[in-house]
């Protein structure tokens, strides 16, 4: 659908992610490294789940539509579980790495906190997941036509872009909540993350009823965002202070050496 749609959808899908990267990650080399490592872990999880998917499709009955649909649901669930497993694995790896980094470095405090790692790894997962979700669709959107000659909705590109934006942000929030829960040994929170991920993925089976899939996803996004905000150390009081610009005094008053 021409360059206008291509750029529009790219900005929608990757806008927040690019903004986050530019302002919070790009200047810190350690964060960049952990971001890319996180993306890689997500990629490996996808590789494993696609291997299982490929094998199971080959041995299945290609004619039966019901079996193929069942296989698709199985594939999605497996992929979600594998992604979360790899998130946990990445968490374990980062813990070990942090101890190692600490013994090696000269300073007393860690160069990067586990909370920042949670954010960065979540964003890494999000980047890679978003790329795989939407890049093929963006490539097709650059052509002269739009979806619909066989009767499908012509809002395909737009809704895919919005979905991708939601997924990227969700991965970031899940990362924060997940790592925080692992730190504090709150396994119910870990389970909640997994369940909400499953829920969002299964909502996409509603497509092409884009409203039915996008609206609940954005509701979940908002809720996870609030939860992540609290896990990351935010509170309503801080928010009010920020919004009413009383923060400057607070900073001075609470100033302590780091």
């Amino acid at each position, binding site marked *: *659908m021409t360059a206008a*749609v291509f750029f*529009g959808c*790219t900005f929608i899908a990757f*806008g927040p992610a690019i903004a986050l990267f530019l302002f919070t990650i790009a200047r810190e080399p350690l964060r960049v490294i952990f971001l890319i490592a996180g993306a890689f872990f997500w990629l490996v999880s996808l590789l494993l789940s696609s291997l299982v998917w490929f094998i199971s499709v080959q041995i299945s009955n290609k004619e039966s539509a019901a079996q193929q649909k069942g296989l698709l649901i199985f594939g999605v669930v497996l992929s979600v579980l594998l992604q979360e497993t790899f998130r946990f694995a990445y968490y374990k790896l980062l813990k070990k790495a942090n101890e190692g980094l600490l013994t090696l470095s000269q300073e007393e405090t860690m160069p990067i906190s586990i909370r920042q790692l949670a954010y960065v790894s979540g964003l890494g997962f999000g980047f890679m997941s978003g790329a795989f979700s939407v890049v093929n669709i963006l490539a097709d959107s650059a052509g*002269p036509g*739009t979806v619909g*000659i066989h009767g499908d909705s012509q809002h395909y590109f737009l809704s895919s872009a919005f979905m991708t*934006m939601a997924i990227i942000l969700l991965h970031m929030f899940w990362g924060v909540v997940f790592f925080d829960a692992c730190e504090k040994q709150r396994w119910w929170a870990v389970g909640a993350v997994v369940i909400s991920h499953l829920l969002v993925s299964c909502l996409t089976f509603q497509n092409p009823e884009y409203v039915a899939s996008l609206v609940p996803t954005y509701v979940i996004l908002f809720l996870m965002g609030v939860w992540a905000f609290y896990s990351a150390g935010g509170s309503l009081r801080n*928010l009010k202070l920020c919004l009413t610009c009383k923060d400057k005094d607070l900073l001075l008053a609470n100033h302590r050496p780091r």
Partner: protein
Amino acid sequence: MDLLSNKWIINLIFCLFFTASLSGDVGVLHVLESEANLDWVLQNGPNPPYMVILDSTLFTRSVMMKLKTGSSRVAGVVVVAPSSNPAEGFSPHTTCPNENSGVYSESYDPALAHCNVTKWNPLGNGLSYEEYDFPMFSLKDDNDTQAIKQCYYDHNHVVNGSSPRYPLCAMQLYSHMSAVTDTATCMRRNGINFSLNPETVCDPLGDFNVLASTRPLNYTDKGHKTGESVVIAAARLDSRSFFFDIAPGAESAASGFVTLLAAAHALRNATQDAQPNRTILYAFFQGETFDYIGSSRLVYDMDNKQFPLDLDNVHSVVEIGQVGLHGESKLWVHTDPVSRRNSSVNEEVEKLIRNLNSSALNLSLSLQEPSFSQPLPPSSFQRFLRARPIPGVVIQNHNSSFTNRYYESMYDNAEYLNMSYPPNLTPEEQLEYVTDAAKALTEVATIVARALYTQAGGSDPIQLKNINADSQMVTQMLYGFLVKSNNSWFQQMVPSDFAIHLRDRPTNFYVGVTQQHSEPTLLVQYLLANLTGTTVNITQDNCQNQREDEDDKESKHIYSYMWVQGAAPPNSTERVAFCVRSTVRLSKALSPAFDLEEYTSKDYSTWTESRWKSIKGRIFLVASHELEMLTLGVGVAVLIASLMLTYIISSKADILFSSGREPTAATY
């Protein structure tokens, strides 16, 4: 989708081309209902540019000229080819074919030039010779075409002049042509070496003429041959239509050369044992449609000592033009009135006509001269007359204007020649069935063969009576060229590496560019070799090396040897191949203008064809421009909003995330 597009063929004087953009032209589909409906496309329609779909009944000059003038709103034209020929006729050629390249010019005889006496092709609308700014494709009327029309009716069709709502059905056609303007510019651009890989943008049209003679000629001995007197029997090999890749040329080409092939076969025995005085040279000219490429080249070669004969060796010319008979029993013998003003030429021509008439005795056809003084119709013989006043005739099936209503169009096919087969025949049975068209052409071939024998000096009346064309062979040839070239008879007569190129569709008679061998040239070459040559018992190795045995160095200058597949005997599946020795030669049919690098020549053909990339098309829906801009706007807004929000949050991050701040490092 089976797409046939028009290749960009250009000439100095005629620039017929289609500009198409590199990335393909996109246009909103519109099925044209009538000529009045053109207003929607050209003025009223709110979503230009349009891709116009025409039924063949609307593919007329007036519609095309109107589309041409409004070409800023036209992205392309698609013509749906009908499954049967239109009754009223259709010819995209001009009314006076090859007007400026024949012999009739102001200097020869101004009263006869430019078809002043007879308009040879009155139904010609000249569409093939116009310039268009958009691509044009042809589609067969099949399921895909129905799907395209259905897409139009579902999405784009309006009633009562209201605007159709987006998304609209659109089509994209790719047919990028590299050439520009005219031949001289294009050939000049070929020579520019800006980069390491100079890009050729156009190629000259041309191929090879197929020649054979009753007495072998030594091709290393070029120039005038003393004492040799030759009768040239000529026919044209090529045709064209508006669209590339579909030039069935049944009456305009095949009727002529199939007759000549049959005549050559009929003469084989008579000219092998007791040779008549004069040699008969069978000449099949390629590229005649495009200002006589083949014949002008042969005349040029003869004039410049590039051929084992020259024009003084030529005694007379007998040319077979369009001779398809649709139930009539009369053929017309055309001659050139200007050269006949010379009494010796006139005498020879009268002798030739008498030969023809006596050959037609006891046969059901008769030959007659036109009743009034008329120039020659477009024919290769005209190029010979440009060089010398040679006596000769052109045999046609029309008295004055063409009777062929589909001259040089895609409708000039087997159906027009009345090649009708009874229903429920297998392809093999169809191959063997002798149609009425074949019977008629057999008679013509017999007449021509006998006349050639007499013209060549043969005088044995028993031999003359035994010269008969074979109707079985004629019908097989007609089937092979006009219905399916992949048949068992053709398979037997070609070498194995060509056999895989035989196809299950009629032959395409478009001459094509010089680099690309055209299928009819090769087919005629192999057929002529088998029909006029002899089988020789030599090994495959010797045969393919053009020699009779290991020490033979001379035969290759005189004869040509072909190792053909042959047929499988009844009990086995292995073909028994053999070697055919004949006097068949290919002579280059490239316009002398390209050798002389005179790309603006008025004397020779200067036709070239543009280079092109892939030719394809597709349909899809397009969204409105507003929706696209809205998407872009939302995207930019999301980007800017997220940038601002992130900046604000990250600058206040200390405050926002301050509770639960990490205590000293050791805990984690």
